[in-house]
């Protein structure tokens, strides 16, 4: 193996990344050994590139080049800056769990309020007892990096029958420039639970940083859960997030993903419907400008019969930005009566904007109803003219039509406060355009 001498574009030896991080990584010697193994997987594979089918449109070697060294643990100044960002991005009424540069910040979090309704520990506290936290259903190079280098995360456990009185908002704040924040979280949701989990990614003045996050969520039977991820990282940041979700029987899971920041981002979601009679709704919006690259890759795996899945995805692409949507629906041989549909639409606001859409149906059962549809196009000139003839300046007319376009996905968010919050993010994005 010649990996020992592998160098990144900046001339740093890849192996230094792990060596320099080791002192920062929580876990017993066994855990560290597992981490080292994961790191070796990454060293062997390197960053994903276009010849790897799943990463065809998102060549991280070309787009990102290298994984940056871990950010230092936040000091008092960093925490102060993070507090400002938290204030700006907190959702009214939600209970916050804040990670700053990949480290849990108790002083910015609502641990006490949460403790009455849910079990909470940090990843740092949990790893020794549960080395399984580093294992995931599938793995690739970025997931391996995550297992190797995750410094912290939240480990949340919501007991059977709990109805959370307020949403939980996990806020990832970046204050350190040109460094990596690597986090891994786990959310275990019991039977009959009603809960809303929000994840926000924001910057507090930091630039050119990298986020690598993994979330492992299991939802029990008869639950009703909303999972919302809002990624609004700095314009020159990188965000790679991997979600692993398993859904029990007769459960409703409503997922929403919004990308409105980062120079390069990839959200890869792997959702397995593992119990019958469940309804999954996965919706997303990508808002991309300049030379941003935003990739949403979703794998919905119908492992059992009688489940419904619906995916609505909308991309708004300006300037020379590039949006990728890959949606795979797998229907296992047993999963009869599966009803799975996926609809994706891209709105191209400039001639140089690019949208790639790759739907895949892998159906191994015969009594199913599955389908997908995709469109890509510009704003309708006749609608624009109608609005302008009624007094709306060009940009405002465009903004109204763009809002309507993304509205089809956003309106799938059931909670009024959350929906308004997300509409607000879209509005601010549109304001920055004009």
């Amino acid at each position: 193996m010649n990996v020992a001498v592998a160098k990144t574009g900046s001339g740093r030896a890849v192996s230094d990344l792990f060596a320099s991080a080791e002192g920062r990584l929580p876990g017993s010697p066994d855990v560290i050994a597992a981490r080292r193994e994961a790191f070796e997987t990454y060293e062997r594979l390197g960053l994903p590139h276009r010849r790897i089918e799943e990463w065809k449109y998102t060549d991280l070697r070309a787009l990102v080049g290298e994984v940056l060294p871990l950010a230092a643990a936040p000091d008092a100044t960093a925490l102060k800056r993070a507090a400002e960002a938290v204030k700006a991005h907190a959702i009214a009424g939600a209970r916050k769990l804040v990670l700053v540069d990949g480290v849990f910040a108790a002083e910015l979090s609502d641990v006490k309020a949460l403790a009455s309704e849910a079990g909470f520990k940090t990843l740092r506290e949990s790893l020794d007892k549960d080395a399984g936290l580093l294992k995931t259903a599938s793995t690739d190079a970025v997931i391996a990096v995550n297992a190797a280098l995750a410094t912290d995360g939240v480990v949340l456990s919501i007991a059977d029958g709990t109805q959370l009185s307020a949403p939980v908002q996990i806020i990832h704040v970046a204050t350190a420039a040109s460094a990596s924040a690597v986090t891994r979280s786990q959310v275990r949701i019991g039977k009959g639970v009603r809960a809303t989990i929000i994840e926000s990614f924001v910057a507090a003045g930091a630039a050119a940083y990298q986020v690598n996050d993994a979330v492992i969520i299991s939802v029990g039977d008869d639950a009703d859960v909303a999972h919302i991820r809002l990624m609004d990282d700095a314009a020159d940041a990188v965000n790679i997030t991997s979600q692993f979700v398993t859904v029990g029987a007769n459960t409703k899971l409503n997922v929403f993903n919004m990308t409105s920041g980062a120079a390069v981002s990839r959200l890869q979601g792997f959702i397995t419907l593992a119990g019958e009679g469940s309804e999954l709704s996965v919706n997303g919006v990508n808002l991309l400008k300049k030379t941003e690259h935003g990739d949403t890759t979703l794998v919905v795996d119908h492992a059992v019969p009688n489940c419904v899945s619906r995916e609505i995805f909308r991309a708004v692409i300006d300037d020379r930005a590039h949006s990728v949507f890959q949606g795979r629906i797998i229907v296992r041989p047993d999963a009869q009566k599966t009803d799975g549909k996926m609809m994706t639409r891209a709105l191209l606001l400039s001639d140089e904007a690019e949208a790639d859409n790759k739907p895949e149906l892998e159906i191994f059962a015969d009594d199913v109803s599955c389908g997908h549809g995709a469109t890509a196009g510009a704003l309708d000139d006749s609608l624009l003219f109608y609005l302008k003839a009624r007094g709306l300046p060009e940009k405002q007319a465009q903004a109204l039509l763009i809002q309507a376009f993304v509205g089809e996905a956003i309106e799938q968010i059931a909670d009024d406060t959350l929906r308004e919050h997300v509409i607000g993010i879209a509005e601010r994005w549109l304001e920055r355009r004009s």
Partner: protein
Amino acid sequence: MMALLEVKDLKVRVEEREILHGLTLTVNEGEVHAIMGPNGSGKSTLSHVIAGKPGYEVTDGQILFRGEDLLEMEPDERAAKGVFLAFQYPVEIPGVTTMNFLRTALNAQRKARGESELMVPDFLKKVREVSKSLNIPQDMLKRGVNVGFSGGEKKRNEVLQMALFEPSLCILDEMDSGLDIDALRIAADGVNALRSPGRAMVVITHYQRLLNYIVPDVVHVMSRGRVVKSGGKELALELEASGYAQFEDAA
């Protein structure tokens, strides 16, 4: 006195084909003009060019609005100055509620004129009044603009906007098409309510019937891209009796 609208020797091309061949029309404040003419004579083209729709090439002539060159202005600037076109075929805009659209448009016009935004309660009150007089149910206003509206409802929605925006020049392109007799009367009443000394209307229609409700001061006959005859309201009756054949020959 300066005319409200002056179209002078206007020549317009669409995709290399000349549609208007030197059209002249003058409309003063307070007047109601009717334009009649066979299909394809260029009536909608004229209305689109006045409103600023892209895709038309003006090769010659002028359009002045209160003496200002309208062709130099963006469509939204024209709207803010008081030009309003009630479309022959209003478009549907899914995802934008009528109410939101009305408020955004009204406030955009006010802003462009340097006026303050209308307060929400005042706005709602006004919309309620006008929509009631036009027999427009409130739940229609919650739907996407024109989405799932019947032909008649779309036309009434155009008149609603006209009443709300209070433009000084209203061009109505076949607002009577697709309306049943009752709806026609309601819409025409709505238009008549807006007649005022400071406001002019250009009513494009194929039917004398509308002109019984909205009585014009001047009637123009358009044929093959020109105004070929102008006269009083009796001209419309003449046309109803004898058709356009005589003008087609002349043009």
